[in-house]
Every structure is written in C-alpha cells, then in structure tokens.
C-alpha cells in the first residue's frame, strides 16, 4: 500500500517537475529582450558571455562581490547539493546501462558525497540563521523563505538519519526506484519499512512539487537574465523585438 502511494506520488511529482521546468524555460525563451541592458563592463563577444556565465554559475561571482557570508553559505549549500545529487544517481540507475567510466566516477564520489551532505546542511543552516539574525534579511523574508530552508535542512537531516541512526536497507530502496524507472506498473518492488526513509521521501516529493512554481527555480533565471547574458555590442548590432518591429511600420520614421 505504502509502496503504491509513494510510487504514484513519485510519478506525479516527476512529471510536474519536468513539465514545470520545461514550461518555465519555454516561457522565458519566448519573451523578447527588446533592449540591450547588459550590466557593464560586459563581454563584447559571445564567448566572453559564456565565460561570464560560467563564472556566475560555477563561482557565484556577483554574490562574491556582494557579500562574503552569503557567498560562503550559499556556495557550500549548492556545491554540497550537487555532490549529494551525483551520489544519489547510484540509487536510480542500473549499472548495466551506464558506461564504465561514468559508473566509476559515481562510485568514487560516494564518500565525498557523504561529507558534501554535511557541507550542504551547514550552508543551509548558515543561510537560515542569517535570515533570522540579520535584520535586513529578516525584513525581506516571507514565511515561505524560511520554510524552504527548513524543508531542505530536514531533507538533509532525514538523509543522515537513514545513514547514521536508523540504517535503511538501501538496496531495497534502489530496487524500488529501478522498478519505477522500468515502469513496472503496480508491480513495484516494495519500499523498506523505515521512518527516516518515509520522512526523507515525503520531503523530497514536496520539494519536487513546489520547485517549478517557486523561487527555487532560480537556476534558469540566471541563464535568461539579460543583464548577464547579453553581449555588449549595441552600437554594432541592432536588436528589435517583434512587438518593437511592429512600431517601425508606423509612419513616424523617416
């Protein structure tokens, strides 16, 4: 019964997540950027913009300029999360279908991923404390801002519980997810009976569902941010949004 509920919930959440993100990207892509508003100094070439974007995504360059505390906590959280996610790949894929080299990488990252989990929760805790203690940040926070941090922290903590407190039979968990992946409808491998696991999975489901409709979906935002992704070439290159082009046909221009 429990297995069925979780299986259906994961299908539902996955579809929502994928469709939600894809739809958001589609929406951003279809809205024109009618003017060049790159924050300067900006790169004057496309490759320069790629480099700028890389620095923003991989190093959080602007955030580093802005505030070292937010940068440290935010960076620990995001890099920690990335490593933890890579570590989790092992639970969702069948090694038979993964090239050896990649599987080797996933194997090697396992111990690192464990520590990364601590870095992630540490970073989140730092951000959460800042949100409460620093009056400027407290002022701009809505209940949801606090709750999202709490949600992520609890996902991490419940994960630790599965590892260190009430060790979960991870092989069964993997079998469950593989049976989901193989679309063995209503013939899913049973989830092991474990409270931390139930908590962990429920929180992850919650995260997957709210992700596409909340500020958590800020990652595509950076790629579509005109102040960051535009080439500084407005004197050389004219840009005309479709709606702006329509104005051109008016009789006011010689």
């Amino acid at each position, binding site marked *: 019964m429990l297995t069925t509920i979780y299986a259906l919930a994961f299908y539902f959440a996955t579809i929502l997540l994928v469709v939600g993100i894809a739809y958001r990207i589609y929406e951003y892509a279809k*809205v*024109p950027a009618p003017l060049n508003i790159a924050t300067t100094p900006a790169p004057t070439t496309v490759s320069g913009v790629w480099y700028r974007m890389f620095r923003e995504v991989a190093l959080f360059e602007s955030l580093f300029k802005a505030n070292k505390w937010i940068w440290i906590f935010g960076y620990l959280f995001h890099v920690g999360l990335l490593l933890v996610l890579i570590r989790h790949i092992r639970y969702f894929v069948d090694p038979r279908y993964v090239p050896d080299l990649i599987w080797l990488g996933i194997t090697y990252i396992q111990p690192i991923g464990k520590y990364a989990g601590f870095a992630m929760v540490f970073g989140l805790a730092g951000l959460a404390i800042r949100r409460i203690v620093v009056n400027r940040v407290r002022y701009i926070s809505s209940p949801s801002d606090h709750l999202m941090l709490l949600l992520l922290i609890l996902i991490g903590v419940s994960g630790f519980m599965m590892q260190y407190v009430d060790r979960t039979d991870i092989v069964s968990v993997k079998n469950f997810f593989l049976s989901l992946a193989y679309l063995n409808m209503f013939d899913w491998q049973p989830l092991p009976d474990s409270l931390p696991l139930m908590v962990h999975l429920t929180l992850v489901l919650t995260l997957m569902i709210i992700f596409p409709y909340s500020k958590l979906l800020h990652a595509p935002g950076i790629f579509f941010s005109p102040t960051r992704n535009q080439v500084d070439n407005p004197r050389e290159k004219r840009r005309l949004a479709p709606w702006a082009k329509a104005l051109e046909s008016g009789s006011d221009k010689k």
Partner: protein
Amino acid sequence: MSELDKSELDEVNSDADTALPDPLEMPEMVPDAMKDLHSFEAAPKHQTDLGFPGELVDDWQDVAIAKIGDLRQKYRSFRVYLDSCVKCGACTDKCHYYLGTGDPKNMPVARQDLLRSVYRRYYTIPGKIAPWLVGARDLTEDVLNEWYNYYHQCSQCRRCSVYCPYGIDTAEISMAAREIMDSVGKGQKYCNEIIAKVHSIGNNLGMPAKAIKATMVDFEEELEEETGINIKLPVDKKGADVLLVTPSADFFAEPHIDGLFGYAKVFHELGIDWTLSTTASEAGNFGMFIGSYDNMRKVSLRIREAALELGVKRIIFGECGHAWRVGYAFLNTLAGPWDFLDPKYPVPQHICEFTFDAINDGKLKFDKTKNDHMTLTFHDSCNVARATRMGDKPGGQFEIPRAVIKAVCNNYHDMDEDTIKEGTVCCGGGGGILTDDLMDIRVKGAQPRMRALRKVTEEHGVTNLAAICAICKSQFAKVLPKYDFDMEAIQSVHQLVSNAIIMSDAPKEEEAPAPEAPATNGDEPSASSETG
C-alpha cells in the same frame, strides 16, 4: 573659490583623531522613514500629452494588473526578475538611498517586492492559493501610493544589479512600475512634463530654436573675449560633418556651460565642421525613466530626423549619463539603422571618446598648469559606468574620462575603490528625481558619495569633483553645500579640457587670462528648470 574653506580645514585637522565615516557605512534601519515623500503628480495635460490617461482611471486595479501581464510578455527582464529573486539579501546594503535613509523599502529587493508581491498575487499559483505564505498581496490604493513614493526614490542607477547573483536590475522593475502607474493615470509631474516639452519643442528645458541660437551667439562672444579667437557654436548648420547632441542643461546651467565651451574648443582646434540641432537639442531621454519604449523611441527619432535633415556624417553625444545609456545602448535599436552615416565612426560617439582619440593622436596640446589650482577626483556617473562603454574595451567608460582628465590636470586622486567604477554610488539625483519636491531623498541619497568625497578631501587634498553627466552636475551643485562643500566644486570634464587646451590660432602676444574655477553668478538653477 572651489577649495575647502581654510577655517574648515583647520577645524578638521584639530579633530584628526575622529575617524571619518566609511562611505558605505550601514545605517540603523528605520522602517517607513521615507514613506510620505510624494513628488508632485502629473497634471492631466502632462499625462495626455504622452498618451496616458489624464487622471486615475476608474478601473485602475484591473488596468494595472493587465499592464503587469502585458509587460511580462514584452520584457524578458521584467518576467525573469520578478520570478528569480530568492531573497538572499546580497543587494540589501547596496542602494545609496537605503544607506542614506535606513528605510528598508529602499533596499533593492524590498523595492522590487512592492511590485513583486502584487505580481505574485495575480500571476503565480502560490500567490493565488496562499498569499500570506509567499508575501503576495492585493493591489490596493495604499499599495499604489507606496509604489508611487518608493519607485520615485530609485535613480535607476543599477548598482544593485552588479551584486545580484542573478543580475536582477531594480531599474527594470522601477521603470516598469512607473509605466504601470502612467498607464492608470498616476504619472509624475517632473518626468512627464519634461518629455512633453521634448516632443513639442525639442529639449527638456523647453528652449525654442530662436533662444538657442541667441544663446550660442552670446557664448561665441564670451569665448572670443576669453580666447581672442572666433570659436563657433554652429546651430542647424546643413552639411556639417558632426551633429553634437548634448543635454540642454549645457545651454544654461553651471558647470555644464563650461563643458560645452570645452567641446567647442576641441572641435575648433581640430577643425571639425560641427553643429547643434534645434530640433534634437536634447541628449537626455526621460522616456527611459518612465519605462516607456514609445516615448523613448519618439524622443530618439528626433535625433535621426535631425541627422538626416542636416546631412551630417557622424553623431557625437555631450556629457550626459542617462543620455549616454540611451545613446550607446538603445539608439541603434530605437532609431537606427544608421547606414546613412559614415561607417568609420561608431554611432553615436561620446565626446570623451572623441577627445581621447584626438589626445592620443597628439592633435591637442594642453597647459596642465591651468588646472593646478585644483586637485581633481572623478565621479563615475551611474549609467555611464554600468550600462554603457566607451572605446573598444570593456571598462573604457572608466578609463577614458580619467585619461582625459589626467591629460589636462596635474593633480588627480580617485575616491574609495568600492565607490567608483562599476561600484560607483549614484549622485542621488538621477533617473527622474532631480526635482525640488524630492530634495529630501536627493540629499540623503548623496550621502555615500559625499562621504567618499570627504575622505579624499581630507586624506589627499582633493578640491574638486569632475563628472560627465548633466544630472550629476546639477545635483552636486545643489547638494554639495548641504555637506559643507562649495557648490562650485563640481566641474565638467570638458571644462577642465577648456581650461587647459592651447588654441593654436590664439593671439600669441597676450596671454589669455588664467581661467578661474567656473565663473558662476551664484544662481542655482531653479527646481523647475533642472532638466538633466
């Protein structure tokens, strides 16, 4: 006299152990400190002149909400920036208005949230289901007034956009907010009246063609008296090579006029055939301040028409910050293509780029000692610094004006690194708030810049502040005295050029009188006539 008062210096020296405040020092947070600052609203005529409703329409909520929907389809920036903020707090201490007032609604993210909260309520699922949870709220009359007050406490200087990890630019939000307010009939008098003047007359000041011509004749006489040579300030001269588009403040305000003299001398010395235009007698484009593409485009097209009419080959912009943004970054889109101009030159060119090139080519000679009575520092104007470029390389907008200053002055010192270049703090008067009814925020917003200036004044003996923006110049002339500086401490960059340039055809026998710091009559431009 543009130096610090001697008595004041002594007083400071005797007080040497008192540390100067950090220019970017964090204020005590004072919620609602600025909530009642309400600039004059546009009269019905100011509104209708620009194609907006004359007064608040009956169904203004519906119109405003629909306008939000419209803008999110038209501007990717608006859409992405409303969605992407994670409230990390990186921007919270970056706005000079927050630093100067302590009002938390002047923190960039909080300023954005005034609109974002409404966007969330009507355009996002969580905001529709659980507004209390995600900080969404209904659009009420109080909210509209809050918009009006706080979106006119933003100079659209983009300092916040430098530090935001997603590049969220509050200027985009405040422009959109002003456009929404205009569309429901709640515009601002200062901006909208000025734009209407440009549409009907050609410049922010409302100076008719005849007056411009007469003024230039006066200026030519003044220049002849000073230099002994006949330096022209041509107006509407057909067939000239260069069209100079400059802020109309250069025709009437100090120290702007001295900058205009500098351009004229450079053109004369280089033998450039140039002209002003009476129809495009304004570089500033307040259409940007109110986020109106239509108005911005209409103002820009005047330049295109003038260029075609006069048959010029190139366009050069005078010293003006937001103007240079529209000129550099938008003009090609709004009024291009410029295929009828000489392709050898970028369109448009900044006067500093032009002078810099001439200096590099060794075509200009200077007597730098003519500026020895001053020690200069340079105020990077916000929109030049963060929205444009000069020259070929990123950052040329910082290097080129400094290079020009250093070519004509012996004494120069930069202010604190985190208050200049891309981190420059705005003068406090940009983006459509250079009006007396907003004097409170203008003075408070200038605080970080004034503190940075105080520091170099005391530590490096800086006496004067140079700028390349008409708004900065007018704003500083007003606020410098409030911070115990001389109002004449503000200089145009081309005023410094004008002081030092050696005119090769000047009569050799009599020395031209050494130029004093700008000869003002002490009159401040009145509020209604501060036109950027």
